[in-house]
């Protein structure tokens, strides 16, 4: 009875950590085990449709990394800075550059930046309440560093360059 109770407690813990905890003696996690069984047993026509991409679990681990970051933050004072500084501009550097110009209410994003969907979304959300326009009457633009033209550079960031055009 004691053995059964111990086994079910361990089985319970394994079901919770199925993506990361390896089964003793087998060397695979329960998730990898079910993947192996799937690979062997699934019909070819189903396997042709795809595989379990972006499996849940392993890549989503975070506590160790976060606790390590927290400890180093405490040591070098970054934790205090994070708690007390407005508009740090992380992870979008251009956001903090734009916020230094409160007169900018809206901005036009150049097509070469807008083409990069992921970057466009990050800018769109990151610089709010500054509104992002595709065209309009504002002189302020976000362009890539090679497309500044005859505009005056106001700020440079890794994602884009902020310019004022005549």
């Amino acid at each position, binding site marked *: 009875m004691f053995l059964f109770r111990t086994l*079910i407690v361990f089985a319970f813990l394994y079901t919770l950590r199925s993506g990361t905890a390896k089964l003793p003696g087998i060397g695979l996690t*329960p998730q990898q085990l079910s993947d192996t069984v799937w690979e062997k047993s699934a*019909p070819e026509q189903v396997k042709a449709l795809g595989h379990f991409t972006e499996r849940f679990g392993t890549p989503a681990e975070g506590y160790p990394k976060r606790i390590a970051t927290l400890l180093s933050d405490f040591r070098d004072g970054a934790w205090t800075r994070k708690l007390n500084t407005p508009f740090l501009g992380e992870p979008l550097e251009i956001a903090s550059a734009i916020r230094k110009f409160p007169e900018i209410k809206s901005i036009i994003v150049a097509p070469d930046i807008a083409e990069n969907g992921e970057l466009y*979304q990050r800018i769109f959300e990151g610089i*709010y309440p500054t509104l992002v326009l595709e065209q309009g009457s504002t002189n302020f633009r976000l362009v890539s560093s090679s497309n500044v033209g005859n505009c005056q550079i106001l700020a440079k960031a890794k994602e884009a360059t902020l310019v004022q055009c005549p």
Partner: protein
Amino acid sequence: MYSALKLFILLVGFTALFYLSGVATLRDERRPTLSLGLAAGLLTAIICAMLTTNINAALLAQTSIAMFGIYRLYTSRQGNRTNPALQPNPSSWPQMTVFMVLIFIFSCILISDPIADWDARSIWFYHAKVIYYTKDIWAHGQWAEQANIYTHLNYPKLFPLLAAQVANAFGFWNEYIPKLAIALLACPILAFFVESALKTQRNHRAIPVNFLLLFMMLFMFDGAGFYLTSGYMDGWVALYSICASMMLTTAIQQHNSDDGRNSRIQALVFLAILSQIKQEGLIIAVILLAVAIAVTLGTLAQPMQSIKRISSGTTPKTLRSAAWYSLFLLGPVVAWLIASHIQGLSLSHYSGNTLERITTKLTTSGQPTWILANVIFHNGMIFPSLALALVLTVNAAATRKRLMTADFLPLIASLVFLVVIFLVYLATNADVNWHMAKSAGRVGLTPGLLIVCYNYHCIINILFADRSIKPQSSISQA
């Protein structure tokens, strides 16, 4: 040191505000437990924001309600002295201390990373930013103009409101501070964990094991480090679901006791919060409630007579109470559904000819199997937990262990939710492979953890079986 103190004061201030306003809004003569008070406080926050429209006015209104909460606490204390039947709920200083320590540590961890990942950045904190800058939960009726439709504007606004309130309290927006809203959302769960893990009614020897199993289930499941701290809501939907299901189970099993009554109210408040976190939350809340009603009717010897007895015993006071709770629990969700419909925010992956898409996918060779495989295997917890659930159920039947019908509630709800997820992937108008790759793992968190919750009930039963039961509701009856 000053920053840590500032953070601590903010946390104490918000938790006290939520608890006291929760106490004021609950129509209970007894002092509510910490988890119930905090959860009711979260609901009060969103109701105040919806009614006053301005987040500063909402904070002021909630503070006024909290003042009334102080008065209610004082009168309930007096009532306890004169009426011994009104014993306070078992929220003690050790529980409170463990709760505050946990919430403080959790908050420190939250600030270690900026808001970065897609759902957090593009949905929850972006909506929060709009609320913070417009100072209005309705964004002056212009959500569609303030934001882009791709950010799922129709999602409920409880969490964005909390994040906006935190930024408002600090007086500025940056990419770290609003993350403290995750700690505020976590408050009722942490309080529930502390109350459940340290319950003194149970055998004292059981406390360390119960503490460990509950802690692992709530905070250490695969991916918890990411899904509970990054600003994604899927982890919180899962946690509120399992807490609500545990309360519903207690409410059904002990329906005549004070504990059962308290659990019933607590479950309803948690389900209301669930519906305010995310769309999936609303679906699982409806499923849990439907399964709970079905299980309750199933456990009654003569359901129709019981219903008649309840309706004949209804007094104006109970009617008033029922009307108040209906308004309190359903008001915010109905208000938001109407508002998002009026503002035209309801675009989703399921518009267009849904039935035709379902039929096409069902008749495409291999497609239903592939979708089913994703529903069951994509989140690694579901399949092993189902296998363990089978072993535990067979063991309970074989050894005539006392497993009650209500214990099956999370398992049944989980299976129903898996069917719903299957239908959703059949109905999607996005590329199904892309849709499943992006969401099947995290959507599977809720059913996965509900099965884990069923396994937890079974294991606690096996390890510490000391409960008395009704014979007609036991599976060992046969």
